């Protein structure tokens, strides 16, 4: 799993002909769409933007005017508490809709920031609203995606609430791998998690020092191997066990096995 898209995303090389193709692919993993519906999605008016790492896609308190799809690159959702500590709430991968909640909620309740360089497609909020209301099948598909996101959030409450540090980190690695795999973004060579140890710490409510220690023990125990940020799962089954990982909450089609297991 060499995440090529993460690195080519900012370059001019990206396939811009059908930027919404990957979004369509995501919708169709759970919701079959007619060719009319597919065309309607691909015909949406969009504006493409290439952005640098750390750019904000949405800020807390924003009044949304467009919905945005991550075409390539990675992002994360975050909130900051009153005393300034940050909690990362989700990692967004290519094909994810960044802010569909803002389609019907009038104010953004959290921020979304890029982890890497990225290309995003902005869809006017009105056009998106119109589309989902006019085409029930697309409406259901989009709701389905937001509900899966919601399920992932529930799992994150459990992760930070009741798992120890080792399980938390292992869980986030398993989730990332399975999601990439499901979107056809994995390669057999392992994958690169485009997060610093500080960001991993903010996603698991640990300190960076603790994250560093856990990654080292996971490596020492033969569950993962690391070269810079490239991570390979040397014992996928054991890693899932350490993580207490059950992929049901991702609501992916198909059986519980994963091609990554063959690594």
């Amino acid at each position, binding site marked *: 799993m060499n995440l090529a898209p993460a690195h080519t995303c900012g370059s001019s090389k990206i396939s811009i002909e059908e930027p919404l193709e990957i979004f369509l692919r995501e919708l169709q993993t759970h919701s079959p769409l007619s060719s009319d519906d597919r065309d309607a999605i691909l015909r949406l008016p969009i504006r493409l933007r290439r952005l640098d790492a750390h750019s904000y896609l949405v800020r807390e308190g924003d009044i949304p005017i467009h919905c945005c799809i991550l075409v390539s690159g990675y992002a994360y959702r975050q909130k900051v508490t009153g005393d300034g500590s940050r*909690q990362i709430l989700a990692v967004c991968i290519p094909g994810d809709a960044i802010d569909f909640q803002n389609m019907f909620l009038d104010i953004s*309740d959290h921020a979304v920031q890029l982890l890497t360089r990225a290309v995003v497609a902005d869809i006017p909020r009105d056009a998106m609203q119109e589309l989902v209301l006019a085409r029930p099948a697309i409406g259901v598909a989009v709701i389905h995606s937001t509900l899966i996101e919601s399920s992932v959030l529930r799992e*994150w*409450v459990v992760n930070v609430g009741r798992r120890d540090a080792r399980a938390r980190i292992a869980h986030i690695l398993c989730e990332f791998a399975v999601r990439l795999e499901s979107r056809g973004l994995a390669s057999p060579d392992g994958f690169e998690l485009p997060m610093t140890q500080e960001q991993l710490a903010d996603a698991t409510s640990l300190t960076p020092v603790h994250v560093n220690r856990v990654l080292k023990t996971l490596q020492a125990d033969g569950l993962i191997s690391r070269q810079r940020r490239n991570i390979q799962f040397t014992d996928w089954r054991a890693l899932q066990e350490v993580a207490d990982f059950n992929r049901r*909450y991702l609501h992916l089609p198909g059986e519980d096995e994963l091609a990554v297991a063959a690594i």
Partner: protein
Amino acid sequence: MSQSNHLEPLLRRWSKHCEFSVEDRDAIRSLPYLRKSFGKDAYIVREGERATECTVLLRGFAYRQKLLSDGDRQIISFHIPSEFVDLQNGVLGIADHNVQSLNHSEVATIPRSALLEIADRHPNIRRAMWIDTLIDSSIFREWVVNVGRRDSRTRIAHLLCELVLRLRRIGADKGGVFDFPLTQEQLADATGLTAVHTNRTLQTLRREGLIQLTSGNLSVLDWEGLREVGDFDELYLHQQL
């Protein structure tokens, strides 16, 4: 007669943020449903179940939870009357967590097919359901923050603030006093703390003159103080809608 329709509280809550036509209202009132009651801690939905119906809480409280393989439990939300406890299952088809009755509760179960059909035919109702699930998501995000990055006193105060505002929204405010059937163990499981720690924290909040907790009732003595301790900003509840 509409008075005897048990879905009236749901309609009333939805009407706060959605405009419905007469046809929309009639459609909601004509939804088929079955009434059921559950005892304390009885399972309303079990993880892994195929969803054939969605459940509106009519009386009492409920909570969603997930169990870890070592038996630990994390509560991921509380629910109050007029709320769906499992609307997402109507679309997802399979339950990814458990829902339990918190005290003695009464619910109305609506067949999944009837809900999907009404959503299909009535864009306003579709929108109302959508908003419900989106606000659920927003609350889950806040809970990740609460459990992940706030200290125990702030966590508990935050959770109390949230419940108070949601109860107020459905008109369950009895002059600053609220039904509060949550046990300290449940509060602990919702905040990722131990029961002992939760108990100590509640006593602190009491001593500070912020709340009073007596036999199933929560009195808020100092709302502004509680909000401040709880690092509470109600934006995420989207009640301005």
